[in-house]
């Protein structure tokens, strides 16, 4: 008989050696004259277990991980291909692993199960059912469903997706052309959920974009993906070609008379292009300078036409909503944060990975019950949520429920759901300096508070760290943060102060520690 074995193929699994593991399994199987078929799934997103090799059995898939090259012979000796769990790397039935079982995988229901590029696999697990429903609905009905679901922009701004779509649906296009633009410029450190959609379930994003097109009357879509994600771009292009081959994209989708074309465009290493107006400039072939708003992109967007700009996760949530119903999505969550958010537990974490849950659990639950604390084993000291523009939270705030409003009450942001953990070796004044330094490197340069403010910010923090006039410079830094907050054109300059201010407020000791030694040095 043929034993079917799955070896993950996403960037992190590959970075941990999955390609060589897959090849080695084939070679050793041949040597042992055992008939195995190695399939490449995406990843379950349980990253400490990568490379997580899964064996198909009648009872389900048995997992072994983390598998390294040196483990292959012993796995064969233990006849792992039978699902035999007599091996130190055996983790049992993968779906029963508590980390996975406790999740609510609405968007990521297929993650790590299917072959990312197999349309058949996708359709076997509810793929394109949402589109089939959408084709039967009017544009307004689709928009209403998304409104009812309570879906809010998953890129971080949390603007209600249905309302954005309504605007684009209602506004006439001077050139009779509207656009769907997917923001796949996932530049926030600690986030990889967009990458997982694109690498491991690309048809879901394609389906979401087609539905968005039907909803607002757009016939052209662009996915603007960052150049740091070569595999995501490769898989998207391949899936788009398959979709065209099966009449799921093009002039007459599934004989419905509906038209939608889709193309991937590659970014070029500019963080600012994750800001929607900068992204549109970049798509138009220009420098990614932020545009002043209004006019909103929904009214004057790409090439001056009405444009939906949505994050990957927003669009990826749409097939579920159109398939299972708006209510099924809206039924979970907390307050005005409805549905699920795929959290990404990263940084110094023991069990890092993707954790999709309904809004509402606390940071503590994610960092300890899922994450298992720090990888280094040292005490956890600070956590940055929401990317490089998100605040650092001290222990006193780790009970905050994960919801948009709940976080903004603490001057923090949930952003794209990235959670970056730091142990007690972190120097928070160094982290604050980095926030400013990052803004220097990535500011588009259009407005002064961001362009110049960040440069001055680095200088002031350097003086503080050197112990020079610490009190006066701390005050100056506070003023500078206020100026950037109030005077910047977009979130880049307007939010860079969040991590800086939170570090100053909650970890003051890291800023003033050199003040004393500098004074002492002077006295000596």
């Amino acid at each position, binding site marked *: 008989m043929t034993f079917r074995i799955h070896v993950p193929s996403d960037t*992190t699994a590959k970075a941990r050696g999955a390609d060589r593991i897959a090849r080695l399994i084939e070679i050793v199987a041949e040597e042992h004259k055992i008939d195995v078929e190695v399939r490449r799934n995406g990843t379950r997103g349980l990253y400490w277990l990568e490379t997580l090799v899964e064996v198909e059995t009648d009872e389900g898939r048995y997992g072994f991980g983390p598998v390294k090259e040196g483990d292959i012979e012993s796995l064969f000796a233990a006849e792992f291909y039978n699902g035999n769990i007599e091996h130190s790397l055996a983790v049992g039935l993968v779906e029963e692993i508590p980390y996975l079982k406790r999740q609510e995988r609405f968007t990521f229901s297929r993650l790590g199960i299917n072959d990312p590029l197999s349309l058949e696999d996708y359709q076997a697990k509810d793929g394109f059912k949402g589109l089939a429903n959408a084709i039967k609905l009017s544009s307004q009905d689709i928009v209403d469903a998304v409104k009812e679901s309570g879906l809010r922009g998953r890129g971080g701004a949390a603007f209600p997706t249905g309302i954005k779509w309504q605007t684009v649906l209602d506004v006439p296009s001077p050139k009779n052309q509207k656009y769907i633009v997917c923001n796949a410029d996932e530049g926030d450190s600690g986030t990889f959920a967009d990458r997982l959609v694109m690498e491991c379930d690309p048809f879901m994003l394609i389906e979401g974009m087609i539905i968005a097109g039907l909803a607002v009357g757009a016939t052209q879509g662009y996915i603007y993906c960052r150049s740091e994600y070569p595999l995501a771009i490769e898989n998207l292009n391949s899936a788009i070609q398959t979709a065209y081959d099966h009449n799921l994209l093009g002039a007459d989708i599934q004989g419905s008379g509906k038209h939608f074309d889709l193309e991937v465009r590659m970014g070029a290493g500019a963080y600012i292009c994750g800001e929607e107006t900068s992204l549109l400039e970049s798509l138009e072939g220009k420098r990614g300078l932020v545009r002043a708003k209004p006019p909103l992109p929904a009214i004057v967007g790409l090439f001056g036409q009405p444009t939906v700009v949505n994050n990957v996760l927003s669009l990826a949530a749409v097939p579920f909503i159109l398939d299972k119903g708006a209510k099924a999505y809206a039924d979970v969550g907390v307050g005005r944060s409805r549905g699920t958010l795929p959290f990404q537990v990263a940084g110094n974490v023991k069990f890092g990975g993707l954790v999709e849950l309904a809004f509402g659990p606390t940071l503590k639950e994610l960092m300890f019950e899922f994450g298992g604390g720090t990888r280094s084993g040292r005490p956890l000291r600070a956590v940055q949520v929401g990317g490089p523009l998100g605040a650092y939270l001290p222990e006193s705030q780790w009970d905050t429920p994960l919801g948009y409003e709940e976080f903004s009450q603490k001057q923090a942001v949930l952003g794209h759901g990235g959670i970056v953990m*730091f142990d007690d070796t972190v120097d928070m004044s160094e982290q604050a300096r980095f926030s400013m330094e990052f803004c220097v490197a990535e500011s588009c340069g259009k407005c002064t508070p961001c362009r110049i403010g960040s440069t001055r910010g680095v200088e002031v923090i350097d003086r503080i760290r050197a112990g020079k006039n610490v009190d006066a410079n701390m005050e100056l830094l506070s003023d500078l943060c206020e100026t950037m907050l109030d005077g910047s054109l977009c979130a880049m300059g307007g939010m860079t102060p969040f991590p800086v201010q939170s570090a100053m407020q909650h970890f003051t000791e890291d800023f003033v520690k050199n003040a004393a030694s500098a004074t002492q040095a002077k006295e000596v």
Partner: protein
Amino acid sequence: MTTSKAVAWEPVTAQALIDDLKSKPGALLPILHAIQDRFSFIPEEAVALIAQSLTLSRAEVHGVISFYHHFRTQQPGRHMVEICRAEACQAQGSRALEAHAKAALGVDYHQTTADRNITLEPVYCLGNCSCGPSIRVGDEIHADVDATRFDELVEGLKTDRVEILL
């Protein structure tokens, strides 16, 4: 992109790449990517060709190239090594890694080793944030990179390895 596959500047090839893409809406970025993928950088000569083909000024094309970190106007080394500098990797020791890398290669960021083998660049997030520090070599991402692993990877770039089955 693997820069070692790049070919020498050839205006006819460049013009063909440009002609292939120039009718796309917002064609400039796709064209710049195509040129850099082929020639490993965007030579001054390409700027004039692109400007003429898209009826832009050379200053406009230059302005776009200089805005984006990804585009370069100098020939890089045979291999591109990018070290993630973002927070999730910092939390796992990337500051020590970058110091080691600079010392081991004898270059700073945006510089190329004396033997023209390796160009070192910073990168802000490779999306491998649970298993850092991360680096990118060509199009391959590597996880859990400490100083020892970095040295091994660099050693592997020094000689053109014979492709073995694995």
